[in-house]
C-alpha cells in the first residue's frame, strides 16, 4: 500500500516544488518551443541554452540526491519511492525514440507543455490534449 503525502505540510511542499519547477522552466525560457528547437538544431543557428539548464539542474541534483539517498527515509514519508527496474529493454529505448521524435517535432516536452497551459495558447492546449491521448492509448494498448 502506497503511503501518500497527505499531510498538509507534505502537500504544501509538493505545491512549492511544482511552483519552483514552473518558475525554473519559465525563467530559463524552456517553455518556449522555439528556444528548445534552437538547442536541438545543432546544424543551424545553435543555441546552447538548454544544455546549461540541464547543467544547472544537475549541479543541484547530483550532490543533493547523493546526500538525501544516504538517509533511511525522506522527511515526511516512511520510505523512498524509486524506480526498481534496472534493465535497458526495448520499451525503454523505443519509448525514448518516440518521445524524442515528438519533442523534436514540436519543441515541447511534458513539463513545459503543462506549465505553459497558463498562457491559453491554442497550440499548447492541442499538444497537451494529444499528449494525454497518447498516454491513454498506451494504457489501453499495452497495459490491459
Amino acid at each position, binding site marked *: 500500500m502506497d503511503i501518500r503525502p497527505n499531510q498538509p505540510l507534505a502537500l504544501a511542499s509538493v505545491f512549492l516544488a511544482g511552483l519552483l519547477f514552473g518558475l525554473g522552466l519559465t525563467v530559463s525560457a524552456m517553455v518556449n518551443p522555439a528556444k528548445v528547437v534552437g538547442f536541438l538544431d545543432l546544424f543551424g543557428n545553435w543555441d546552447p541554452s538548454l544544455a546549461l539548464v540541464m547543467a544547472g539542474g544537475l549541479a543541484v541534483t547530483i550532490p543533493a540526491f547523493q546526500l538525501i539517498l544516504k538517509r533511511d527515509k525522506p522527511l515526511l514519508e516512511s520510505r523512498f519511492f524509486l524506480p526498481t527496474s534496472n534493465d535497458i529493454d526495448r520499451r525503454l529505448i523505443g519509448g525514448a525514440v518516440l518521445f524524442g521524435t515528438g519533442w523534436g517535432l514540436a519543441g515541447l516536452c511534458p513539463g513545459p507543455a503543462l506549465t505553459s497551459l497558463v498562457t491559453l495558447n491554442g497550440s499548447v492546449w492541442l499538444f497537451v490534449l494529444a499528449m494525454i491521448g497518447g*498516454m491513454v492509448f498506451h494504457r489501453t494498448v499495452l497495459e490491459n
Partner: protein
Amino acid sequence: MENFTPYSALLGGALIGAAATLMLWVNGRITGISGILGGVLFPAQTDTLWRILFIAGLLSGAIVYTLINGSPIELQIQATPLLTIVAGFLVGFGTRLGSGCTSGHGICGIARVSKRSFAATAVFMTTAIITVFLVRHALGDS
C-alpha cells in the same frame, strides 16, 4: 549563437534542480512530469491529490514569473496544428512506454546514477536532434 541566454538558463536549471531536490528530500519521490501526469489520468487508489497539486504548482510558477517579469511568457510554436497533434501523441505514448521524460530521466535519473536514465536521455536527445535536422534541413527549406 546570438540567442544564447547562459545566466537565465543556469538560474532556471538550478530552480528545477531545487524543485526535484525538495520532492526527494521531503516526499521521497522522483520529479518526473510524465509520470506525475500519468498518475492523475490513471489513479492508483487515492494517490492523486499531490500530483494535481504539483501540476497546479507548475502553472502557478508560470503566473509568478509573469507577475515578476511584468510581461507575458514568450511562446513561439513553429509546428503546424497537425504536426503538433502528432508530436503530442508521440510524447504522451513515448514517455509512458519509456517510463519518463526530460525531468524524470534527464534531471532525476542521471542524479541517481541510473543506467536506464542515462540510456533513455542519450536516445531521446539524439532522436530529437535528428528529427529537427530532418525537418529543418533535409526536408525543410532553411
